[in-house]
């Protein structure tokens, strides 16, 4: 690992890992070497449950352009949802 560019955040939700569905407690976001993607560096997303062991993880590795598209899409979808389905308490 070389860049050490990383953020951690507390999240609520569910993820599907190698053992099936599990509750998520944290998300890791980093820009560093991926494990599997054929890229020098990638935007790495790891959704984990710290209390359930290191294997409780859903991993995604994206190139930078894809990650940016994803981030924009998430914000756009939430913006649409705000008008119809979300209340202030949801965000």
């Amino acid at each position, binding site marked *: *690992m*070389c*860049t*050490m560019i*990383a*953020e*951690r955040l507390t999240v609520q939700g569910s993820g599907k890992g190698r053992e099936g569905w599990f509750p998520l407690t944290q998300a*890791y976001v*980093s820009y*560093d*070497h991926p*494990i*599997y993607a*054929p*890229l*020098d*560096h990638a935007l*790495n997303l*790891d959704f*984990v449950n710290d209390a359930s*062991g*290191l*294997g409780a*993880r859903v*991993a995604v590795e994206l190139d930078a352009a894809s990650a940016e598209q994803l981030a924009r899409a998430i914000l756009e979808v939430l913006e649409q949802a705000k008008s119809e389905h979300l209340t202030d308490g949801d965000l």
Partner: protein
Amino acid sequence: MPGWDEWYKETTRRYAHHGYATISPDLYCRAGHGAPDDVTAKIRAEGGVADDQVVADAEGCMAYLRSLPILNGKIGLMGTCSGGRYSYLTGCRSDGVDAVVDCWGGGVVMADDGLTPQRPVAPIDLTESLRAPLLGLFGEDDQSPTPDQVAQHEEALKQHGKHYEFHMYPNAGHGFFYYDRPAAYRAGPAVDGWEKIWDFFGRTLQSA
């Protein structure tokens, strides 16, 4: 890659095959045990392990090696990626290192705003303290370290009169030794790089 993975374990065996007593420390062991990618994900999210801890682990390995009756008294360090950086860092900070091989270690050159509690000092700023000859292998297409950062590192080595040899391979990027990563692997530079490592350690670690 990255982490204490199959490639590193095979590389350790390769050193043994060439007659070296070798330790590949699991620098991430305190994060817990599991698949290398899961352990690495946790360490990556934490911004890496602390430099002080890595140097202490390396010194522990060296102390163990010195306790072995088969050792000729000489110790070399070799690492790739952040491991290359750690090898250089330990070569600058610890006594009893006789040779250092840095394979594309990113983060030797660091901007002030890139320093963290885990990495409080840029290794390039410790160059004056480097106690051993250094072999560096790099790829022209690498983003970390970039050729410009390698040039800065080389300039610091020259400035302090250190014994070093750097090799910059064209058409190679980060991790060109990693045969299990087809996009990174470059057979020609990898074969040549390994020959340079055996030659370098053969010269620097031979018995007096």
